[in-house]
């Protein structure tokens, strides 16, 4: 690994390892500023029923920011809904890339393993470049990789919960086994969570609520961007091992004898 390596997903390369979720911003201006501070190159968007009253498309904001769009299937509870939504997204955004979400519970918004695998398999067959939002279950992550997903996006904790990475053990097992990029998705609450994800070895981090719902979204975008870089660098720098006892940073040899009782 070299710290300056680009992130490679499918046939694409990205200089940034922070993907920005665009939901939850109070207005387009805040999104635009967060986009800039995050230095993200990829931003997720969703599809909802067209609202004739709404003026100004989010796509204009993202185009102005020079970022690319990664559509999601947020809100889908069945493989079929997710597959149709992915096809709509391909039409709407002229991209084969899809962040696949198939939710199994509306209180925790956790993915449904069975529907997720079915949808992923079908979408891969339909020629999509599939990045699935998944649990931290290593076996499920491998299945998703096996059916042809180009990345896996395990959660740290539920969407918008800000609880960070509840089970770093599972994330690290996923990292050991995966041959596709692992992108931590959901759960990041603040900068240190993002740094930790990268230190574990994640290839990238996706943040939405942590940034969009912070008191100052642009500042948090900058904070998390720095944290992603910090974590990536720290991973590459080779941290010291954890030790039970202390190890002096100041040499112990050569202490002066300052006890006067021996003198005179």
């Amino acid at each position, binding site marked *: 690994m070299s710290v300056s390596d680009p992130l490679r997903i499918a046939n694409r390369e990205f200089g940034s390892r922070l993907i920005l*979720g*665009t*939901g939850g911003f109070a207005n387009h201006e805040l999104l635009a500023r967060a986009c800039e501070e995050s230095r993200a190159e990829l931003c997720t*968007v969703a599809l*909802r029923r*067209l609202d004739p009253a709404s003026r100004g498309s989010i796509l204009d904001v993202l185009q102005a920011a020079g970022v690319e769009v990664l559509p999601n299937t947020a809100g889908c509870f069945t493989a079929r809904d997710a597959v*149709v939504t992915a*096809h709509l997204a391909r039409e*709407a*955004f002229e991209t084969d890339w899809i962040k696949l979400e198939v939710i199994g519970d509306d209180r925790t918004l956790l993915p449904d393993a069975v529907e997720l695998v079915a949808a992923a398999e079908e979408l891969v067959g339909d020629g999509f470049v599939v990045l699935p939002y998944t649990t931290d279950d290593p076996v499920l992550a491998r299945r998703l990789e096996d059916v042809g997903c180009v990345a896996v996006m395990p959660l740290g904790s539920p969407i918008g919960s800000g609880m960070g990475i509840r089970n770093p053990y599972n994330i690290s097992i996923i990292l050991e086994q995966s041959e596709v990029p692992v992108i931590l998705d959901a759960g990041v609450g603040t900068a240190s969570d993002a740094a930790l994800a990268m230190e574990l070895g994640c290839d990238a981090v996706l943040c939405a609520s942590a940034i969009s719902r912070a008191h100052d979204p642009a500042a948090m975008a900058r904070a998390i961007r720095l944290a992603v870089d910090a974590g990536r660098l720290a991973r590459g720098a080779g941290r010291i091992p954890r030790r039970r006892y202390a190890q002096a940073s100041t040499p112990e040899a050569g202490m002066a004898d300052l006890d006067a009782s021996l003198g005179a």
Partner: protein
Amino acid sequence: MNVTVNGQPRELPAGATVANVVDLLDVAPEARGVAVALDGEVVTRSRWPATELREGALVEVVAAIGGG
């Protein structure tokens, strides 16, 4: 002809097409970030003008919004 557009009942003349519905919603035909499903299947943009609706058709016209 009665159809449902984005969950709302609409009365349209016989022979109305997907393109007519999109137009009704004030969407330019070349607008980015818009897609249409008819009865649960995607209708690609190039087929909007030629795709006629049937009585009871379920039309969904979706657009980009912020999402995580």
